[in-house]
């Protein structure tokens, strides 16, 4: 278990414990964090689990596939710090990670 702090677009923080080996998306969905829809359940098929990750954490994560990049490219609120939560498996290193969410996933 690691502590992840999901932050809604309005600034509301949700600190929750998430299992190592699951994804940032799964951590949000299983804890009912508002702001992540995850329509396809983690298939990198829908781009409804976009999150913003600060640079200091981004380097610790697996790099982005072309597929993820293409899906993100069409998200209305895409920024440089965008990632798809379903594509990032949680490791021990992520304890204390802050994940910010867009105003909407659609």
């Amino acid at each position, binding site marked *: 278990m690691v502590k992840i702090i999901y932050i809604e677009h309005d600034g509301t923080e949700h600190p929750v414990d998430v299992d190592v080996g*699951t994804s940032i998306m*799964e951590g949000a*969905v*299983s*804890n*009912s964090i*508002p702001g992540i*829809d995850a*329509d*396809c*359940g983690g*298939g*990198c*098929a*829908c*781009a409804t689990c976009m999150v913003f990750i600060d640079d200091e954490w981004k380097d610790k994560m697996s790099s982005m596939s072309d*597929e993820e990049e*293409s*899906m993100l*490219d*069409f998200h209305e609120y895409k920024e440089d710090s965008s990632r798809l939560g379903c594509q990032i498996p949680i490791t021990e290193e992520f304890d204390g990670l802050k994940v910010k969410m867009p105003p909407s996933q659609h």
Partner: protein
Amino acid sequence: MSKEKTLIIGGGQAACQTATSLKNKKYDGEIKIFCSENYLPYQRPPLSKKFLMGELDKERLFFKPEKFYTENQIAINLNSYVQRIDIENKEIFLKDNKKENYDNLVIATGTIPRQIDVDKKISDKVFYLRSIEDVLQIRGKIKESNKVTIIGGGYIGLEVAAIINKLGLQVTIVEMASRILERVTSETISSFYTKIHKQAGVEVLTNTSVEGLEKNNKGVEVITSNGVIVSDFVIVGIGVLPCDTLALESGIDAKNGIIVDEFCRTSNDYIFSAGDCTMHPNIFYNKNIRLESVHNAIEQGKTVAASIMGENISYNQIPWFWSDQYETKLQIAGLLDNYDDIVVRGDTKNQSFAVFYTKENRITASDCVNRPAEHMMSRKLISEKILIDKDRLSDETIPIKEVAN
């Protein structure tokens, strides 16, 4: 005054979404879910993909952990069948004749696989794939088998064929139509998937109907119009039927699905329906349709929740789907309703291309193989009904985002 009460019949994506959306909207009434299966509501798409492969634990299929339901005071009743709805007195009756009253009722009963006639002697060798339990049984069977026949060349049959082939078994697909996926896609896509299945070593028999199944000492003889295929077991994937009998017998309008309007309201003012079991209007295609789709289940779940809250937000969506086979992800947008032309972007000889279906120079649907950008862009182009130049659409030197400029 006692609290308002919403009952949800069904334990799939639409049922779970309805309950979740009600909670997100701060619904303060009571919520009770009645699932016929013995598992918390779970995702079905991975059943014919990663879960069949054994790459995903079943707990990871659950939408929410048990504590979500307890913390949110959503009562989940597993293994519970609703036998009858008394629409006059607003009550449902469970199998043990227990009854429960409601203010709002949501029917999200999904579909069941279309069955074939099978003699009892071989029913232990014939499988369908719709539930966790089905997959656990099939996984057990795979371990002790060498050869499987899949009846039906639709998406379920093909996904299952790809996985079982990867697991090392010899797979034969038997399809009655002249090509696989005939009901749902174009010749171009059918040919592509026929090719990749054959390359992987799967036998694909089209124009072949199944005339009977017989037990033999090795397993099952599948008697077809093109000869007999002997295999250890058989998986049947020949489509699904909407679970609308409960609704129909209770006096709610249903015909090939429970009939709802754009607010997911049935013919009864206090009863709503969402997901695969609904026959609903789609404004983009201007007709009533039934969809077997995660996206539809989610969006109709949200629509029902909004309707219960009195918000009246109409369902207004372009359908989309996806299918994973081998190293390809197919993303489908829109309905292959009617089109007058096909535009291909990329080369179908490679495992990365997009097929756009157009009518009067507007995209009405698309099939994208390992082309997520094209898929996302086509959803935008379909929904905004943008006029396109077909030469630009097929020209790969123009980025997909700029083809409509």
